[in-house]
């Protein structure tokens, strides 16, 4: 064979291979197109919590319609409304909504009732498309996994962070707190009721508000709601101690009305400038630099929530996942899964955050240069999520009752009706009856 003939042969083989490749890719993309376009004309109904991401998500749904032909209707509901409607829908099998945003703490009850589609196989099948490794492991676990069953897919990750007044700290010559003990000391130092400046604020209102905030501080101070067997241990020595500290802070370092505050109240007090330190969810962080909402623009520093001295660095994690209603028919379920993949994909989710969604689930997002320019506190969120703890509020099926019991007990202590030891002993007795 001459060199020319050999060269021509290779060229023919290359051409042949190229033709096969083109044909195969045409078939594959054609079938993917066919698969995607076969959902044309469907409508999905999504019930969303009224957090900052909801309005942005509603705005983005026309893009999904353009890409796939599926219309998505977003209903924005308050927390109790959402929980009630969701449970009623599942219990009555009424198929009112195809998709729900689910709170981190609902994973246990959803797994126990089996009302949402278990996503483990779907995730495995589409792992490359979803880029599972890009999602923070703590969020994949906390925002929808319970004992191995993935009942929801992470959609909005929140980190518990500390927002503090840089100007007040500078004035007093203090460094931003690196341990919980520092924070408590700084809170007392910075409190000056004559100037209406208080060093500390948290939820005090009876019910879920005070229960959730106290559970966060409790974990940071070394307490735990459950013991290592997963049974309630509400009156452990560490819990009693942290409740005493919490009560002292409320009496000596918090605005007087804090005993009635829920999330709205404490955010308002910080934004109005009367509070020096507040631990809060990262989703609210952008609001402090917005003049239409905040009187402390430019004076707020964002750092990780300080752990107790000598304790491991575990930062509180919260947020919302997306769950698919198991009652809807197969085609709707597939369309819903397509929506979840689309909404949590790197490009769409980045757009969600650029427009103010404040919800981070991907490592790439918190390192993205465009987002960093707009929200310089992203490294704080990143550190919190890498070392995050999504279980300081136990995500078990009995969570609503435990939250309620604690809500009563902690509020009673803050108001001065009972001593921490007695309140937690009674709470423990009530909680033990649930198991």
């Amino acid at each position: 064979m001459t060199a020319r003939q050999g060269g021509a042969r290779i060229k023919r083989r290359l051409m042949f291979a190229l033709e096969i490749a083109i044909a195969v890719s045409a078939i594959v993309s054609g079938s993917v197109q066919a698969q995607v376009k076969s959902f044309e004309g469907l409508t999905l109904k999504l019930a969303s919590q009224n957090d900052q991401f909801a309005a942005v998500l509603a705005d983005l749904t026309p893009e999904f319609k353009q890409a796939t032909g599926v219309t998505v209707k977003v209903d924005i509901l308050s927390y109790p409304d959402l929980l009630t409607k969701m449970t009623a829908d599942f219990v009555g099998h009424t198929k009112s909504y195809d998709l729900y945003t689910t709170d981190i703490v609902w994973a246990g009850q959803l797994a126990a009732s089996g009302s949402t589609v278990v996503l483990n196989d779907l995730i495995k099948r589409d792992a490359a498309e979803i880029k599972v490794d890009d999602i923070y492991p703590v969020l994949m676990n906390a925002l929808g996994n319970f004992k191995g069953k993935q009942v929801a897919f992470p959609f909005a990750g929140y980190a518990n962070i500390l927002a503090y007044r840089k100007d007040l700290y500078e004035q007093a010559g203090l460094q931003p707190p690196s341990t919980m003990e520092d924070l408590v000391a700084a809170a007392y130092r910075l409190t000056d009721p004559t100037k209406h400046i208080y060093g500390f604020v948290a939820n005090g209102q009876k019910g879920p508000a005070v229960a959730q905030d106290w559970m966060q501080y409790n974990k940071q101070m070394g307490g735990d709601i459950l013991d290592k067997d997963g049974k309630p241990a509400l009156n452990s020595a560490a819990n009693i101690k942290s409740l005493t500290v919490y009560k002292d802070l409320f009496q000596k370092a918090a605005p007087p009305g804090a005993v009635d505050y829920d999330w709205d109240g404490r955010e308002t007090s910080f934004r109005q400038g009367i509070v020096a330190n507040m631990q809060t969810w990262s989703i609210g962080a952008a609001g402090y630099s917005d003049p239409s909402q905040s009187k402390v623009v430019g004076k707020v520093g964002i750092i990780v929530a300080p752990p107790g001295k000598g304790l491991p660095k575990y930062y509180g994690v919260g947020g919302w996942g997306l769950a698919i209603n198991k009652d809807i028919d197969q085609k709707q379920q597939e369309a819903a899964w397509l929506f979840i993949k689309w909404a949590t994909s790197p490009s769409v989710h980045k757009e969600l955050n650029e427009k103010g969604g404040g919800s981070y689930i991907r490592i790439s997002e918190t390192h993205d240069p465009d987002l960093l320019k707009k929200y310089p506190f992203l490294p704080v969120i990143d550190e919190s999520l890498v070392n995050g703890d999504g279980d300081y509020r136990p995500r078990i099926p009995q969570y609503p009752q435990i939250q309620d019991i604690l809500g009563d007990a902690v509020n009673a202590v803050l108001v001065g009706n009972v001593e921490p030891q007695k309140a937690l002993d009674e709470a423990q007795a009530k909680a033990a009856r649930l198991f």
Partner: protein
Amino acid sequence: MGKQIELSRESSGSLISTKPVMTFARYRRLFLVLLCAPAFVYVLAVAVWPLLQGVYFSLYKYNLMRPASRAFVGLQNYRDFWADEAARGAIITTSIFTFSAVTLELILGLGLALLLWRDSVFERALLALLLIPVTVTPVAVGLIFRALLAPDFGVLGYYFAEWGLSGPRGFLGNPATALWTLVAIDAWEWTPLVTLILLAGLKSLPTDILEAAEADGATLAQRFRLIILPMLLPTIFLAAVLRSMDAFKVFDIIFATTNGGPGDATNTMMLFAVKEGLQFFNIGRASTVANLMIVCIALFSVAFVILIRGADRKANER
């Protein structure tokens, strides 16, 4: 009532007539019954049936999220409710709230009604304005007052705290004053309605007796005590029973302001029922609370109706 419509003429051949003789009276009765039937069926379906279901469920331990664990427990739910100290406190709190709110509204409402009795343009315009608080949604009322009374940045609450009128935690944050504040909020919302009812009652009083009393030289106070008040008693009781039924079920303003706190100061039975039923989905226990509320409301409604009948009879004797 005398005319006989004999339908059995059609089968005049047979001596034994099987069709009932339809008198006009019977026709009319049948027509009226049929006319009421849709409403009757509706009430049965929407009110009576759920009520019976509620009683049925209260005998079960039934959680909607764990339907498999449903079990008959007889009166255990009622025993549990009575054994719970917070629950017993809730009954007392609800009763105190109802009694105080209704009394305050009646007194203020009667005062306003007497002032509005003169029926000129001014009074009529003011009555229309006064009814605006009644039209506001109860949840919105709760949120408005929560915002106003917040001790740290509420327009009213801040100054109350600054000037020492309320404690530093505000009226709603202090267990001693929280319930009375809610009574005041309830009065703010419903006094105009009581005024309207009492004003209607006042306008229906026979004027000849009042004019005669004035001619006889009775003072204002005497006229009020001896004539107006006794004749107005049926209307007063009517307003009282209407308001009591609603005040006992108070929920929105409490949920929107204090959520039952601080401590247990504003914990009412309806809050209990909603928490058990719509947060924990414990249908058994929620039904128990709801049934107890029905019993309480029924008891004092019956008492009031008896009082109204008695007062009505007395008023008509004059």
